[in-house]
């Protein structure tokens, strides 16, 4: 198929259908409303079901049910709506049900604004709900990448029996870009022999639940989950890195801000400053190890986010105190400019050469 021009939100819907998603439950919210709008039209045409729930809480529990019955299912929202879904997400994680959840982040806290934001990093990577759980968390920086990661996300959700978050900002949701839908590489996935698909009178009922009344049983369940999360940490880290060995300044950014940072990097290089970049594609698991490959020329790290500084905590953990970590951030729907990032690069490098 040749390239087409799509809005990020539409592309998310199209990618999910391509990945075999048959159910979408959601409640519209700017700047992600085009996802349910697209699904309401396209999903029935693909033999699936779209249902606008009465609330985000209802929607995530419908996802829990459909995923528990073994179906490929997705929901999508933006920051305040994702906050409402947190109870359902921890239940889904606890019951080990696969599903894909898309967050087109907007400004916060509270109702915040409808403009783009990246301030749900803590919520996405630390778990916004209760209990010891983790969600595999992808942070695409283009429409093509969000398409590829939604498709990959469905496979990973099934493989690990775990919710997968796609965390982008409103800019990615609202922006138009050229995109191509490639056929996903087939992967071997285990049978969903745990799903509540009806016993047919031939087996004991499957139970999908996150309640364990015996302390020992819950401890054993948590141990098993921990092992799964370790496995995800070992196998699923994705990132893009460039020029770390020679870099005087290393930029760290994800999603939309990583594109702004790349523009600033080119401008800095034109001024003779050597700049490296680390772009986490998975926010959890975070690409800690790649920070070890930063060379001895480095004078500092600059983290750029559309938040008051959230990923910067992970960057500091990864840097292990070797280098100073600086921050450039905007909030309220403001998008950082390449010029402000360039000014910080020059400061850290010690002026223009």
């Amino acid at each position, binding site marked *: 198929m040749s*390239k*087409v*021009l*799509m*809005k990020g939100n*539409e592309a998310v819907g*199209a990618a999910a259908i391509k990945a075999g998603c048959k159910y979408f439950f959601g409640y519209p919210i*700017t*700047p992600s409303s085009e996802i349910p709008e697209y699904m309401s039209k396209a999903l029935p045409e693909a033999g699936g079901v779209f249902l606008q729930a009465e609330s985000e809480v209802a929607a995530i529990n419908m996802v829990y049910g459909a995923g528990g019955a073994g179906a490929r299912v997705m929901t999508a929202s933006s920051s305040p709506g994702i906050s409402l879904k947190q109870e359902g997400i921890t239940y889904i994680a606890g019951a080990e049900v696969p599903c894909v959840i898309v967050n087109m982040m907007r400004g916060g806290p509270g109702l915040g*604004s*409808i*403009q*783009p934001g990246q301030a749900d990093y803590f919520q996405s990577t630390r778990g916004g709900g209760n209990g010891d759980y983790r969600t595999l968390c992808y942070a695409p920086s*283009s429409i093509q990448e969000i398409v590829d990661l939604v498709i990959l996300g469905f496979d990973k959700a099934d493989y690990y029996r775990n919710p997968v978050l796609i965390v982008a900002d*409103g*800019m990615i949701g*609202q*922006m*138009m*870009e*050229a995109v191509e839908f490639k056929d996903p590489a087939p992967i071997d996935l285990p049978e969903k022999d745990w799903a509540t698909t009806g016993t047919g009178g031939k087996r004991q009922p499957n139970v999908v639940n996150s309640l364990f009344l015996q302390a020992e049983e819950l401890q054993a369940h948590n141990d098993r989950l921990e092992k799964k999360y370790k496995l995800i940490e070992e196998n699923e880290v994705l990132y893009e890195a460039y020029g770390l060995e020679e870099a005087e300044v290393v930029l760290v950014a994800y999603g939309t801000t990583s*594109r*702004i940072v*790349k*523009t600033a990097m080119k401008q800095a290089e034109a001024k003779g400053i050597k700049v490296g970049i680390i772009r986490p594609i998975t926010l959890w698991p975070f690409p800690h190890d790649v920070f070890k490959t930063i060379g001895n020329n480095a004078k500092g790290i600059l983290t750029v986010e559309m938040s008051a500084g959230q990923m910067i905590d992970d960057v500091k953990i990864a840097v292990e105190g070797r280098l100073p970590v600086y921050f450039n951030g905007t909030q309220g*729907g403001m*998008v950082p400019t*390449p010029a402000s990032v360039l000014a910080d690069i020059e400061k850290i490098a010690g002026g223009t050469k």
Partner: protein
Amino acid sequence: MLDKRLVIIIGHYGSGKSEFAVNYAVKMKENHDFVSIADLDIVNPYFRSREKREFFEEIGIKVYDSSIRNVAVDLPALPAELMGVILNPNSRSVLDVGGDPVGARVLARYSEQIKNVEYDMFFVINGRRPETSTVEGVLKYLKLIEATSKLKISGLINNTHLLKDTTVEDVEFGHELTKKVSWETDIPIRYEACIKDTALQITNKEILEKLFPINLYMREEWMS
């Protein structure tokens, strides 16, 4: 430009209406003293022409948008001055309308007044949008939007593109598509819009005759 005093830009959602409207207003300003652009997009929360207010005012184009002066609000509020924009015989005006029938609905409220003045209504076509990549797809939207607006489309704009990735092949594909739509509807092709870099490489005579090279004013430098 031989177009009428009032030019209305409509089309399928995401066809590049705002970008064309912005470029069109800038072009208009080269030949006329009094030019205004009215952003009537009640569909999109981002990427609306009102975001470029400062740029327009700098080059002397008047901007009318929502009566609620805030780019971060998606309330379907319209400017009271719009009636003046439509009726004022001394000013050239571009109406940048939201996408699809839902966006065109704002026009129906003014259709009685618009019918009494000289106007052009241009339908923007992007053949690289999945829903308008075939003649049938374009005709479906064209008819629905025209019916909703209660006005007549007077020209087609081939605006087939993939933003900065647009190739000559994309423009030629859109040209053939728009030609077929023109044949089916008896509406003439008015412009063949294309980003400047790609416009330089076009050799097809039919496209060159109506070529309208555009700048991507609505895209930030870091966007593709």
